[in-house]
């Protein structure tokens, strides 16, 4: 099958290719299907993309859906609905629709306009989820302000990121707003730090330092740290 290579500046219509490599500025008008899409410069696609593997080192803008098995974003990317098996982000990604992945490893930032579904959601970056974050395992290390309207899952763990020293430095410069804000958090096993939420519901709930929570409802176990502000906690 043919390759599509744009070095310098060029444009192409969509189609089916083996490798697609953009080292410069490229524009693709139409749907694109390929085995590996690699962007080292800037790419604009006016259409949907289906690829086995996607690597973005520069910037990529997709007007449509992005569907792949493996996506690695080290630069910036924006797209409509994004679906893939493993998604690694050490740059910044914007999803103007729903994000559906099996495994997300986030070290940079992601902004999802609608729902985010994942089996494993591992974040040590910054995220904003416009509607529901639904994941089997949610493991968050906070390095900034993260937001999700609702969070639901089986195991949810949220902790402060960074070493004690780093946190001290940050607090000296009044940059200590490492929190996760959500309206509702629901799950089986919850272990939370630095959460601001209206309602937290779960089977086993541990509320740690820096939390501000209106209502905690738990089925089996509940423990609250001294440094946590919980207006009301009740057993269901």
């Amino acid at each position, binding site marked *: 099958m043919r390759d599509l290579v744009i070095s310098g500046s060029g444009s192409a219509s969509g189609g089916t290719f083996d490798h697609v490599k953009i080292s410069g500025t490229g524009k693709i008008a139409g749907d694109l299907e390929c085995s590996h899409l690699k962007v080292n410069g800037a790419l604009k696609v006016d259409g949907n993309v289906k690829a086995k593997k996607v690597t973005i080192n520069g910037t990529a803008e997709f007007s449509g859906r992005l569907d792949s098995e493996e996506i690695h974003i080290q630069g910036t990317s924006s797209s409509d609905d994004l679906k893939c098996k493993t998604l690694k982000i050490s740059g910044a990604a914007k999803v103007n629709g729903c994000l559906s992945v099996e495994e997300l490893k986030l070290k940079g930032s992601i902004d999802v306009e609608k729902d985010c579904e994942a*089996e494993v959601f591992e974040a040590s970056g910054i995220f904003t989820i416009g509607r529901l974050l*639904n994941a089997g395992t949610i493991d968050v290390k906070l390095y900034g302000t993260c937001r999700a309207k609702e969070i639901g899952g*089986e195991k949810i763990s949220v902790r402060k990121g960074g070493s004690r020293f780093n946190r001290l430095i940050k607090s000296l410069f009044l940059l200590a707003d490492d929190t996760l804000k959500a*309206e509702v958090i629901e799950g*089986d096993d919850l272990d939370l730090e630095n959460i601001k939420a209206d309602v937290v519901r779960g089977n086993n709930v541990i509320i740690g330092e820096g939390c501000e929570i209106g*209502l905690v409802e738990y089925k089996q176990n509940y423990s609250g740290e001294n440094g946590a502000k919980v207006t009301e906690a009740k057993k*269901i």
Partner: protein
Amino acid sequence: MEQELISKKELLEMTGISYGQLYRWKRKNLIPEDWFIRKSTYTGQETFFPREKILGRINKIKSMKDDLSLDEIARHFMPDLKQVTLSKEECLKRNIVSELVVRIFTEQNGEKNVFTFDQIFQLFVLEKALQSGQISLEEGKLLLKTLVLHAGGLKGKNGELVFIRKMGVSAFILAGATEIFFDPEVNVLLRLSLADLLEELRLRME
């Protein structure tokens, strides 16, 4: 379309499942998105479900989940009917559509011996609308045209067909899952939920 609702809390209590299970099933598409009805209550946001539908669905999932994987169960609830086709004779024999409806279709789209699932659904909606006695044959023709044009855009949503008349002039409305309000002079003659009809059709085709 008033229906009895059940809160998420009550649902978990009654069925004995956990939050995690409910979210996992939602992720695996075992529970349709539009059954999650979000409402503001005095304790903040709460989620409600159509009571009978969700209880039935959860009992089914519980009874199947020991033998089948979640993906297999999902396929069971959402069989891939897009591939299904039926011959004209088959549709007539199974009482899915009447000869009259097939004739209207043939007039508009030419002679066809085999129908795709989408076409069968359009015919089925027309059949139901005609059976209700609220629309005339001419209006039925208009309805089929409307369905052919727009039904694709309603796929997967809780669509509704509304037939109204005002001062003797009739019109069809195909609406997504939103509430519609009419001016007082409008006569709403017919409202059909497309999702319900789809389920009914599925049962008949099995």
